[in-house]
């Protein structure tokens, strides 16, 4: 509606000049520097509650993490005589960096993420293309059904699938028995497949609709031109539509790979029903949880958290770099 009014004094466009009101305020001449300072202070005060909370709940814990990781807490005797805290420098971090159990977990989730995330995206894209090529009205009729899994709380979704996989209550085991297959979804060899299917279930319909929406934004004149030039529908999909959504697709894939490295809830719930195949150190986040709250070694758990954060943070930083370069 007011496109002209909002672009005139877009604050982001003007270089930040401290202590100055926005450029497009005409009666500035009658206001002195004191008014301007006061106004700037009031403007800054709007973000004060956020900054205070952010400092306490984000910055302080990060500083504490760094502090905790350079100490070691030893309980003397049988836990009666209190505990002694000694400074150990980088020992915890070095131990965490060389912890084979931790890196085995990282390897498991890394492999899982690298398989499941692209698989989800490619299948979603394929279906979005099918939908886009055929009809624009059919998709709308299926929208709510396809979005339902996305609305179900993650814990409930995991529980539903745990029961579906179950050899006693679940229908899936029976179904595979029809073909003479005795599939144990809880076994350690199938655990990641079981978790992967549940992740795919939760996200595929939603991803497909997001991509379908992005495809609808492609100007249709291009397709007409391509058809006139003799391009097939498949060729149009591959050479016009896919490049159009490739940017967001790569970005979301990379971001969800990063997020998946921290997977915790799903394997923990599986552990509740099948502790022999899902160990307590199955994923890095589970190992941190175990070290901190079951073993009680907060110092070492913090060191492990820092190593995980470094891996995740380095990955994210690379993605943001890549993103800033590829997008104008």
């Amino acid at each position, binding site marked *: 509606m007011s496109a002209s*009014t*909002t672009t005139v004094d877009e*604050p982001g466009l*003007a270089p*930040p000049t*401290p202590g*100055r009101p926005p450029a497009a305020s005409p009666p500035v001449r009658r206001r002195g520097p004191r008014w301007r300072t006061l*106004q*700037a202070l009031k*403007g800054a005060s*709007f973000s004060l*509650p956020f*900054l205070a*909370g952010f400092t306490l709940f984000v910055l302080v*814990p*990060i500083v*504490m993490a760094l502090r*905790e990781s350079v100490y070691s807490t030893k309980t003397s005797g049988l836990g009666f005589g209190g505990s002694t805290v000694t400074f150990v420098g980088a020992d915890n971090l070095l131990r965490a960096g060389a912890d084979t159990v931790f890196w085995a977990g990282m390897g498991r989730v890394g492999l899982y993420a690298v398989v499941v995330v692209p698989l989800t995206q490619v299948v979603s894209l394929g*279906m979005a293309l099918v939908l886009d*090529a*055929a009809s624009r*009205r*059919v998709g709308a009729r*299926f929208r*709510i*059904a396809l979005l*339902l*899994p996305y*609305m179900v709380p*993650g*814990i*409930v*979704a995991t529980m*539903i699938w*745990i*029961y*579906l996989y179950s050899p006693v209550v*679940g*229908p899936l085991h029976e179904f595979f028995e029809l073909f003479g297959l005795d599939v144990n979804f809880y076994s350690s060899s199938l655990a990641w497949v079981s978790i992967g299917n549940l992740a795919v*279930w939760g996200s*595929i*319909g939603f991803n497909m609709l*997001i991509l379908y*929406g*992005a495809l*609808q934004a492609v100007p*249709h004149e291009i397709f007409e031109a391509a*058809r006139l030039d003799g391009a097939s*529908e498949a060729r149009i999909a591959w050479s016009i539509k896919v490049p159009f959504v490739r940017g967001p697709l790569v970005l979301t894939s990379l971001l969800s790979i*990063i997020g998946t490295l*921290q997977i915790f809830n799903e394997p923990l719930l599986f552990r*509740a029903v099948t502790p022999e195949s899902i160990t307590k150190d199955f994923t890095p986040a589970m190992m*941190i*949880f175990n070290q901190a*709250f079951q073993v009680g070694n*907060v110092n070492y*758990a*913090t060191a492990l958290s820092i190593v995980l954060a470094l891996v995740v943070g380095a990955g*994210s930083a690379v993605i*943001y770099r890549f993103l800033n370069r590829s997008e104008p």
Partner: protein
Amino acid sequence: MSRAAVRRSADEPTAAEARGASRWFVLAVLVALAAYAVGPLWWLVVAATKSNGQLYTTNGLWFADFRLSENLATLFTYQDGIFGLWLWNTVVYSTLGSLGLTAVSLAAGYGIAKYQYRGRALTMGLIIGSFLIPGSLMIVPSFVLFSRIGIYDTIWAMILPGMFGSFSVYLAKVYAEGAVPSELIEAARIDGAGEYRIFASIAARLMGTAGATIFLLHFVASWNTFMWPLVFLKGAEKWPVMLGLYSWLQRGTDSTVDLTSLVVTGSLISTIPMVALMIAMQRYWRSGVTIGSLK
């Protein structure tokens, strides 16, 4: 602008649509996908109507004796009705946390978007930088912090930390830039309104959509949260519903009491409000999620 033109041409049959075979193929794919999406939820609904014994003996995908009301009665009376308490806790944590987050984020986003001051760039830097902090780094040091400041194992551990989300501030800032015209602020100033009054009675209203999106996204996230209460709440009477269901799932497998039917019915009951809310407020979360995932 040209949206109407695009829509019109979109309604005309495309070349592929004219071919019947591909149309049936698409329909088959969609039906299969919808069955995959809805099937597990169908199982949940059916299972919630069965007695514990029939869960094991009857076909999982069809009804047996309809015992939903008995199951609900058991669910809400087991352990002195602790499930009702869990639901209530979830509502309280989600509502208070989301209200706080919305107020804090709208104010901060508005201030950053509409004022020039020293430190503005630093604030934005902190916000963007914090996108890179993985959640798993925070959990152990937060535990140490909460123990020290005395909010460990209190409801404040569930409400306060969620109120300072940098993504919500970012969302509010982007929205304020587009939705609050500076001319309007200037006009209100000339009429003698103070800066805070302008925000409270003009800007906050113009930012209503952003507020609803922030509220909804956090409400849903907070309803579904699991690791946080698992670490920070010891007493079962303070648990939110997801953690309570997990405790039943865990006990159901390592003791003589079979809680499966309770977990199933409880899962259904705790999911219905989310599905109802998400369907009713589609336009808010779909825009919010799109900003988050594609931009």
